[in-house]
């Protein structure tokens, strides 16, 4: 489904070149929920943003389905993006649009008729359980509700892939759990491939099947979530697993 070969990306900063990604190779199978975990600054955000080219890679190739994303021109890229949904840490909803209009926007972009848009938005509102908020503005919603709108908007054009850029990092644990359940549900219902990045082991454990650990722009470990938890190979992963165990114990005590 997704095939990344030799992906590299550097940023030019005041302090010189920063290597955000170094020769990343990654395969993600269809309808998988694939997590990328790392500390902040490890390059995980750059990696996911390269998948729909919000960030332009320096070298390497990315295939999603039959599209070689890295070789598309602007017009082709816009078409491909309609089939790659994305959700964001800070939701990035349009404050001047109602919930309905936010979800309708990708459908307007794809030039559906008014009637088709209404039908599809109603389906999506039903899916994310926000029908009663149809005409609300984002400021009237809680964080979890905002992310549900974000998810509905990302799914509007029936994408094959959903990219999740720290989608639950701004949410409290309970809301995080309900959003993750929704993602899992969508994944099963529509065979949607989900790529998510996170710095929380809890997110991986709850919904991911496979995982890659990224550190300093390189993938240091990759495999099933089960293997990662039971048999971590690197210090970073052990640190993540350790902190997760402590978190679990704390939660238990509380």
């Amino acid at each position, binding site marked *: 489904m997704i095939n990344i070969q030799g992906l590299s990306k550097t940023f030019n900063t005041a302090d010189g070149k920063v290597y955000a990604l170094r020769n990343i190779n990654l395969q993600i199978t269809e309808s998988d929920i694939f997590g990328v975990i790392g500390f902040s600054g490890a390059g995980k955000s750059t990696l996911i943003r390269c998948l729909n080219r919000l960030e332009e890679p320096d070298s390497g190739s990315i295939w999603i389905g039959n599209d070689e994303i890295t070789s598309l021109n602007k017009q082709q890229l816009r078409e491909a*993006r309609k089939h790659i949904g994305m959700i964001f840490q800070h939701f990035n909803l349009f404050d001047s649009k109602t919930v309905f209009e936010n979800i309708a926007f990708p459908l307007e972009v794809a030039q559906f008729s008014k009637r088709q848009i209404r039908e599809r938005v109603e389906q999506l509102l039903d899916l994310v359980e926000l029908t009663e908020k149809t005409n609300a503005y984002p400021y009237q919603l809680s964080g979890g509700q905002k992310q549900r709108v974000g998810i509905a908007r990302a799914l509007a054009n029936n994408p094959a892939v959903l990219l999740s850029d720290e989608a639950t990092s701004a949410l409290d644990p309970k809301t995080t759990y309900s959003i993750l359940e929704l993602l899992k549900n969508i994944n099963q219902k529509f065979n949607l491939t989900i790529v998510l990045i996170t710095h929380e082991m809890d997110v991986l454990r709850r919904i991911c099947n496979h995982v890659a650990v990224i550190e300093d722009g390189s993938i240091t470990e990759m495999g099933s979530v089960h293997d990662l938890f039971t048999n971590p190979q690197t210090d970073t992963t052990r640190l993540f697993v350790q902190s997760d165990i402590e978190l679990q114990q704390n939660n238990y005590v509380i």
Partner: protein
Amino acid sequence: MILANDVLPLLGVAVLETTYMVVMSTLFALLLGLPLGIALVVTSDGHISGLPNIHSAISTVVNIFRSFPFIILIVLILPLSRWLVGTTLGSTAAVVPLAIGSAPFLARLIENSLKEVEKGKIEAALSIGAKPFMIIWKVMIPEALPSLIRGITLAIITITGFTATAGAIGAGGLGSLAIRFGYMRYRNDVLIATVVVLVVMVEVIQWTGNFIAHWLERKHH
């Protein structure tokens, strides 16, 4: 102080002329300034149509026009007024330099408003596959609307001031009345009356602009 009877009709005509000049100049200034302001934002480095060279070129032209004192600009643009409206006198002729003189100012105000739109919202629109045109009209402008309204209000008030300057060289309106009657004929009552009317006009414009911007903000935030 009592306003003599002869002044009221003159004042009425002057108010109409000034209103006409302000409305027409604002419309044409928007017609020029809005595309320029949008272009300044979207061509800036890293934005949706990042073309740094084009950005610098537009920016330079805008700065050159903004550095002219308005009265000099009027004189320079007079030949263009003659060519476009057939005369250099009167309110319609004044609209040409008023619009051209205030368009670069308006462009900067619009640029500042549109630059405030969060990067994340633009990225969300990009990730959906929206074309630049859709991002500008359906995302950036609606998101920045309260700020745009405030900027345009400021520009209208500046244009109102400019019409008074244009009045000094034959544009008609309140500025012309103040200078020709109030100043040159020593009619202090006329001078004061025009100033009072201008103050009221500016107040009304500012109040209306604030009201609309505030209403939009309350609706969305």
